[in-house]
């Protein structure tokens, strides 16, 4: 970091308040620190509450440290505590079969992501690298999907899935989003349009067919945006709420996010098991946080990228 008095202009600091650096910069830093604190604090508060004894929480609600430290809330949230144990710590006795929901979420998000990204990549290739009559018209029709609010299609889709008896299972959960995503097609097409033609032409000279070029050249060259897209799709699917709420009325395929909402509703209104709820919340958020640890930079860059492109 350059010190505030350095006269050398950093490219980053364009339009910086270089003439009167001190007060503005201090204010700006203060603002940023406050924003970061407000952003991060709730995550700490989840952890602090999750490690507290629910019955003791009211005694010191503003203590920054866990109140009467215990792993009990996690045991309740993971369904490891007996009913008596749970109630002794202020649990509601409601249980959350976290391993099952976790499995459901993993299946739902993984299968959905793999399917929709593959289908989108194939379509994007056809729209970006192949020449055929009606290409632009078809593309624009598909893009119209970006405009329609999900609620308009959700109700009829629900009726359809019910009519084909696929409620409460993975098929009904995954199918509607498995083949087509306007955003994904658009995003990948945009990238593939920018690929150079030389490699492709060389491959054609060598007698490679279009399909071979797709698998051997275009796909590998698009590895980075495909990874990005998979990440974003996975996160979105993991956090999906409305559609699972409609189609999953029992535990069989109910994802974690949804189960969390149900768990909350089974908690008594008067004295909710906040410690247990926060433990469950943390468990639900943990995979996303882990993903973030692993791919933080990529996620950050990809969001910038989606905006600029």
């Amino acid at each position, binding site marked *: 970091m350059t010190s505030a008095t350095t006269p050398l202009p950093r490219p980053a600091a*364009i339009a910086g308040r270089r003439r009167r650096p001190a007060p503005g910069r201090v204010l700006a830093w203060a603002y940023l620190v406050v924003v970061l604190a407000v952003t991060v604090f709730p995550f700490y*508060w989840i952890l602090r509450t999750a490690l507290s004894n629910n019955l003791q929480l009211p005694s010191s609600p503003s203590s920054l440290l866990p109140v009467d430290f215990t792993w009990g809330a996690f045991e309740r949230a993971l369904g490891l505590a007996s009913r008596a144990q749970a109630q002794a710590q202020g649990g509601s006795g409601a249980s959350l079969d976290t391993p099952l929901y976790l499995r459901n979420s993993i299946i739902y998000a993984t299968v959905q992501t793999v399917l929709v990204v593959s289908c989108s990549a194939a*379509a994007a290739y056809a729209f970006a690298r192949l*020449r055929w009559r009606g290409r632009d018209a078809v593309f624009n029709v598909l893009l119209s999907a970006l405009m329609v609010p999900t609620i*308009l299609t959700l109700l009829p889709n629900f009726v359809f899935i*019910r009519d084909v008896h696929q409620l409460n299972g993975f098929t009904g959960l995954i199918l509607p989003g498995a083949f087509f995503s306007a955003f994904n097609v658009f995003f990948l097409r945009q990238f593939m349009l920018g690929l150079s*033609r030389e490699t492709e032409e060389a491959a054609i000279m060598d007698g490679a067919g279009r*399909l071979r070029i797709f698998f051997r050249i275009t796909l590998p060259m698009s590895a980075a945006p495909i990874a990005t897209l998979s990440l974003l799709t996975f996160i979105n699917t993991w*956090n999906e709420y409305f559609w699972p709420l409609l189609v999953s009325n029992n535990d069989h395929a109910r994802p974690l996010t949804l189960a969390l909402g149900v768990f909350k509703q089974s908690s008594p209104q008067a004295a909710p098991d906040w410690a247990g709820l926060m433990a469950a919340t943390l468990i639900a958020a943990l995979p996303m946080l882990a993903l973030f640890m692993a791919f933080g930079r990529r996620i950050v860059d990809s969001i910038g990228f989606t905006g*600029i492109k």
Partner: protein
Amino acid sequence: MAQIVNDRQAGPGGAAPGRRRGRSAPPAVHHRGDARLAWLLITPAVAGFLVFFAYPAARGVYYSFTSFHILVPARWVGLANWDELLHDGVFWHSLGVTVYFVALSVVFGVLLSLLTAVVMHRLTRSTVVRGLILLPFLISGVVTALVWQWMLDPQLGIVSQVIEKVTGLHPLFFGDGAWAVPSLAAVSVWKSLGYNAVLIFAGLGTIPPTVYEAGRLDGASEMQMFRRLTVPLLRPILVMVVVLTVVGSFQVFDIVQVTTQGGPANASLVLQMYIYRKGFGELDFGYASTMSLALFVLLVAVTYAQMRLARAGESDLS
């Protein structure tokens, strides 16, 4: 966004936002099997589009003209639902609630993300800072809603505790009719701030420093440069952020469903919540579809207006 539509066929009424200006696909080397292979490759996407998007969308339009309770087949009733909609006080109330929520989310969300992006851009390139600020975007609306409901709990919530100690007031947040929507909007802003800030931050990176150097030579002040250079040059990305926030906020559901469920006394009954209540609470799919369609029409109109307004005097880097 500016390049969503890339060709002539989009026409003036093209459904997608964005403008024609884009490049078209490089003139690929002609190959005989191209068309057949192309159709093969797009078959899954087109099938998904037709079965789970176009058909249900058409179906939704049809339902909006029917009396349809899920167990009985739909019966055509013409404009009855629309007539009901016009006279449904709750619908208009929920529309008002939604617009209020959207306005709060957009104004505070966009201003704060713009400010945050500009501050970040001046102070630090750190991916860690951008990453931290992005954390709320990664977690689900349910998780967000739960933690904020806990922090805003009138009895034990840390925010309530602090406010009470500092000011002596005792706000009820989600439990107070006057505060329910602002609380929801605050939570929604908290969740989306980082995402929007990172988008705008990326936009700032595309503005060449020479623009500011020229401004400085002309003796422009910081505020002048921000208003006359930064904001106009960011216009495309700001428009996109505003459109995304508007479209997203109009469809807010999970935060509401987990925290207030539309209460107290319908004070936070956003449109999507009302549609859900009609459709899945009362199984009145016909009327729920009518409202969904109304929401769609509204969104198209709002988006179109925004794109039009944004294009007036568009100044882009070129």
